[in-house]
């Protein structure tokens, strides 16, 4: 990806005066923001919420929990006890930063690498294990009942976010829809259409691009010729900006600003969070086929969790004992959830029919009967 703080070449204003027939009629700039450098040192004054050590510790816990879930999910997959799983290793700050900036009654529409956001909002570890273990009940969230389930076909949930935000607007509710997707999604028409409509209708909708630089094996440079993905907002008449996606403070601050503006009727916003996919695309992928460890290893030094921990330690708000206590707590929660998942029997076979329609048509009643007959044979 291009360097930070890229500002497109500014036109010569005097040009219009010289030749009104050839004036520059539009120009744009994309701002980039970061609060913590990779070592956890503040590079500018922190936003208000970061003055509170407890708030930062909560963000830290959210990222540690996401990573612990991630590691457990990969381990379960490797031992044949979970389906194919897309790790979010190294991208925890994007997910947690988004969720921490939202209100509970906002609606989140995730892609498939935002477990950290789902967990923060109240989706349970057991539900996530169930979903990735191949059980639809994992998307029947006990909390956040209006949040959308994980979206596997890339970008296709972006228009849903438009509909959800339109519902808020039509009902005069001060709620915001937040839609996350990856860099690859920005190549699809769904995202272009969603940005465009959100702009026209000034919807309370925040798009977050979880730019981990890779769409499976294809790097961003092969995805677009644009300098930034954030500037895709500009053509839709909405604001776009970049943040350091490995700086959870930056993500939370930018999303909170966008969400607050959207809630106040200022319309949609696009945030491109720059991060890096440290893992394979999924457990079914072998990234060494298309990128070398030499390419990946420098990005470990940008790890969002280490960064925030160093910052907290530097502020005297985190000690070894805190770390040990947190890891023990999180690990116990994840292990317990995994056990619950593994001990959960599959649904009854008849349930494959039962939610196709509210009321089963006769043909499906017949098919259900044959299926269950066959299952018992």
């Amino acid at each position, binding site marked *: 990806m291009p360097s930070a703080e890229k500002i497109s070449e500014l036109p010569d204003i005097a040009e219009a005066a010289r030749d009104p027939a050839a004036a520059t009629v539009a120009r744009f700039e994309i701002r980039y923001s970061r609060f913590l450098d990779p070592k956890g040192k503040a590079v500018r004054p922190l936003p208000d919420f970061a003055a509170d050590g407890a708030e930062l510790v909560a963000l830290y816990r959210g990222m540690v929990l996401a990573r612990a879930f991630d590691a457990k999910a990969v381990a379960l997959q490797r031992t044949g006890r979970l389906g194919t799983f897309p790790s979010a290793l190294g991208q925890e700050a994007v997910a947690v930063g988004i969720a921490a900036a939202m209100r509970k009654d906002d609606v989140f529409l995730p892609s498939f690498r935002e477990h950290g956001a789902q967990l923060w909002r109240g989706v349970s570890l057991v539900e996530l294990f169930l979903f990735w273990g191949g059980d639809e009940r994992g998307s029947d969230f006990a909390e956040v009942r209006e949040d959308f389930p994980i979206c596997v076909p890339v970008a296709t949930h972006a*228009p849903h976010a438009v509909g959800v935000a339109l519902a808020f607007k039509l009902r005069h509710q001060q709620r915001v829809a937040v839609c996350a997707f990856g860099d690859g999604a920005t190549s699809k028409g769904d995202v272009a*259409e*969603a940005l465009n409509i959100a702009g*026209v209708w000034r919807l309370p909708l925040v798009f977050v691009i979880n730019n981990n630089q890779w769409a499976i094996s294809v790097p961003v440079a092969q995805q677009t010729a644009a300098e930034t993905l954030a500037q895709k907002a500009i053509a839709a008449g909405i604001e776009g900006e970049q943040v350091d996606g490995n700086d959870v403070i930056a993500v939370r601050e930018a999303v909170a600003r966008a969400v607050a503006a959207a809630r106040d009727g200022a319309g949609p916003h696009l945030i491109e969070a720059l991060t890096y996919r440290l893992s394979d695309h999924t457990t079914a992928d072998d990234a060494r086929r298309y990128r070398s460890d030499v390419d990946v290893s420098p990005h470990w030094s940008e790890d969002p969790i280490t960064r925030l921990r160093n910052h907290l330690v530097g502020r005297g708000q985190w000690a070894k004992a805190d770390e040990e206590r947190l890891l023990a707590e999180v690990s116990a929660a994840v292990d317990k959830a995994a056990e619950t998942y593994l001990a959960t029997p599959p649904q009854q076979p008849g349930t494959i029919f039962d939610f196709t329609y509210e009321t089963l048509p006769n043909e499906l009643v017949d098919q259900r009967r044959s299926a269950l007959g066959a299952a018992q044979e």
Partner: protein
Amino acid sequence: MSEINLVQAVNLALARAMVEDDNVVVLGEDVAAEGGVFRATDGLLTRFGPGRVFDTPLAENAIVGLSVGLAAQGFRPVAEIQFTGFIYPAIDQLVSHASRLRTRTRGRLTCPMVVRSPAGGGIRAIEHHSESPEAMFAHIPGLRVVIPSSPARAYGMLLAAIRDPDPVVFLEPTRLYRAAREEVEDDGAALPLDRCFVLREGTDITFLTWGAMINETLAASDTLAGERISVEVIDLATLKPLDSDSILASVAKTGRCVIIHEAPLTGGFGAEIAAKIAERGLVSLLAPIERVAGWDTVMPLPRLEQYYLPSEARIVAAARRILAYQ
């Protein structure tokens, strides 16, 4: 009560549904001030305002996709796709999301939406305006596929579609929009979405059809009636879920069957019906099933479309072959 045509019946049902339920919203391309290119949404903007009737930017995939979001939030969007030839980008949303949101979330989120679209040929329209893709939709689990063929059925079935808790693809035969008028009482009475309609009772042969082909089919049955052949004509009206029982009962009575549809033959919905009859009604057949359908060609432009669309003559010929079968 007054005599209205099919497109007016659609309009009447939309207005009725919007009065009944504030969650019903109408959206699409040119549906607001324009009132729809066929005037199906005429007057709704004035009556219900821009919060209930709105134009979308020109993006069919997003029209259906954002309707999924609205529906998940409890609205009942009625989205218009201007012509069925433009609906293909939106099939992704219908297949990947609208039809499976209930199943995926175990009923937590649902998708009570209607996608309306004028379908079929015979109006001398330009390229891509005369498609009959109903079989594509009928293949998608979780959808309902409805094609009314009269003003009264358009009114009653559209009301049912809007009230239905699941997504409905509602294909309106363009050729019939202004072809005939009948009295339609605006009484809010819905028609069932799981039953076909016996338009004529008969004993010698069954004609199964839907959409605009109703006209040619009825004409063929008139011709045969002149030869003392008694034809039972059934309008399927709802392709999914299919009312197999009524079809099988008719074939059991007549022992002969012609399936007529405008869409291309191969993989057309007629194949599904023929298979159903073969599976469950073979012993009652006195002759092979015939299908009279569009050819397996690209829909021709208007100067040749008469050679594509199944004609009364083709239907009569098929019936005669079956009746002569020994």
